[in-house]
């Protein structure tokens, strides 16, 4: 069995498994807490020094289901939290990371201790082992997806233009 085939088997096998993370409407929260590799904190800081701008912003936008995400280093630079809010199901969220921006994800996560690589067969088991479900999760717009919001903003822009034209 090739790695890709194996991954397919793992994916379909895990599709029916209950996944961690709390839900609010169609959005879910994702909180992953992991140890950092020795000396990794400074490297992660350097990596994220420019934030999610430019190419990284564009690449992350391509996933189009992530409302927000953050990396938080704590415990004297020994541990890290990755937290985000996303639309739809857990499996697709992870698959999208691996399918759309695998290099970017590997770059950001390879400093997490034990991280196997986004397209490694054991990735989902590793994530499940590190993920902690929130005890409280609030969303101001639980029914709106990232795409809904982008579309609404586009419409708002168009309506603004329309109203400006109509009133002049």
């Amino acid at each position, binding site marked *: 069995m090739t790695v890709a085939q194996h991954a397919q088997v793992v994916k379909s096998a895990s599709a029916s498994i209950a996944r961690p993370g709390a839900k609010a409407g169609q959005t879910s929260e994702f909180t992953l807490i992991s140890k950092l590799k020795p000396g990794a904190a400074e490297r992660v800081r350097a990596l994220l020094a420019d934030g999610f701008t430019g190419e990284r912003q564009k690449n992350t936008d391509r996933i189009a289901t992530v409302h927000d995400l953050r990396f938080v280093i704590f415990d004297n630079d020994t541990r890290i939290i990755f937290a985000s809010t996303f639309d739809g199901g857990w499996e697709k969220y992870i698959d999208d990371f691996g399918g759309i921006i695998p290099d970017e994800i590997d770059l950001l996560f390879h400093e997490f201790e034990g991280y196997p690589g986004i397209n490694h067969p054991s990735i989902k088991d590793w994530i499940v082992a590190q993920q902690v479900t929130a005890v409280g999760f609030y969303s101001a717009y639980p029914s709106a997806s990232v795409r809904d919001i982008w579309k609404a903003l586009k419409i708002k822009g168009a309506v*603004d233009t329309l*109203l*400006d034209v*109509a*009133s002049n």
Partner: protein
Amino acid sequence: MSKSADILSMPTDKIPVLEVSDIQATVLRPRPSPYRGQYVVLRIDDAAQGREMLRRIIPYIAPADDWWLPTLPGWMGIGLTYHGLKALGLPATSLETFPQEFREGMASRASILGDVGDSAPANWEYPFGTPDMHVAIAIYSKDEESLETTLALARQSHHDLPMISVVYRLRFSELPNGCNPFGFRDGLHNPNVEGSGAVVHPGSGRPVKAGEFIMGYPDELGATAISPEPEVLRRNGTFVAFRKFHMRVAAFRHYLREQASSPEDEDLIAAKMVGRWRSGAPLVLAAEQDDPELGADQDRNNAFGFGDDTHGLKCPFSAHIRRVNPRDALRNELVATNLHQFLRRGTNYGPPLPESVMEDDGAQRGGVFLLIGVHQRQQFEFVQSQWITDGNFISHGREEDPILGNGGGDGIFTIPKRPVRRRLHGLPQFVAVQGGEYCFMPGLRALKWLAGLEAGATA
């Protein structure tokens, strides 16, 4: 949570007696009208001479009980900056009990206050934003002759003290009809300070607890100030945000001409930006055209709220007066408007730009505002950062106050209208900050205490 907001807006019975003979007149007394005066800033290079200057000037600092019968040709108000208190020899143990914004100085708050671009501290006049601003004196008189007399008294306080220097002077005087340089009657509204004895006109709102404006009395949350220390220094004192604005009158007139379809429309757009017509008549009470009689009538020109204008069709949500003093407009929001009020003592400087002149004549003209309150971060700083230089609280995104905002050529101003709203684009910056600082305005006993400080004394 809305319950606590209700409690906040509920007046309690006990009204403390204000020690008006110890509170500076500038805090509680409206400036005269007409008025003439001067702001003077001093630098102290020797603590003993600084205290001598204070001793000499204290007899001329008017207390608020001399309200109806001024015994002098004019009166003075005095404020001290953080660096000023230090220069007078106030010990560090006392200095460090002053509020953060006061210790840091207004220039260091620029990013919070939206003092950017042309209004950035780097562009301020000397000595604003530098450690050289120590003592700010406001001198008010009713005419030129009385002003000269009062200025002479002020000068005597330091003329033979070589370590006291005048680092700034600005003359101010009332423009025709009590208007500001943009041509609007101003200084129309101030909060009603409980127990102050000021004449209350309809619409000035329910009394606001004195502790919001003067230390030593309970504030709107029932708390009495416990700092700065010692008590003798803070009692009957307050803080003032000093702001000097340059007003670009020609740019204002140009923009109105560009945007309007007729001279009447120019007046309407201008009124929509301010929330009042030039006469002072509020849009809520005169939606279609100016009503000079209403504007001049103190018993009517504030007797309004925004509760009946929930769609902003008369007075836009973004209008200047609706932003800085929302009255009842935010009553359904979780915001305690009673915590965000301050007293305003405004004066204008510079010659008026003659009517119908469209080109800038290069003259310096504008306004100086003393924004007075005990909790500057909740009062001036909150209003400036949340209500003037942002629009989110009225769901207007980043739209700013059309008059005081930093339009900078890409500002917008939304005028609600049916069937289709009107929105103006390309708003330039009409007002630039040219200087500002936080000052402590002590009570008269506290001033005497400061004047009596001995070298090395501990507070």
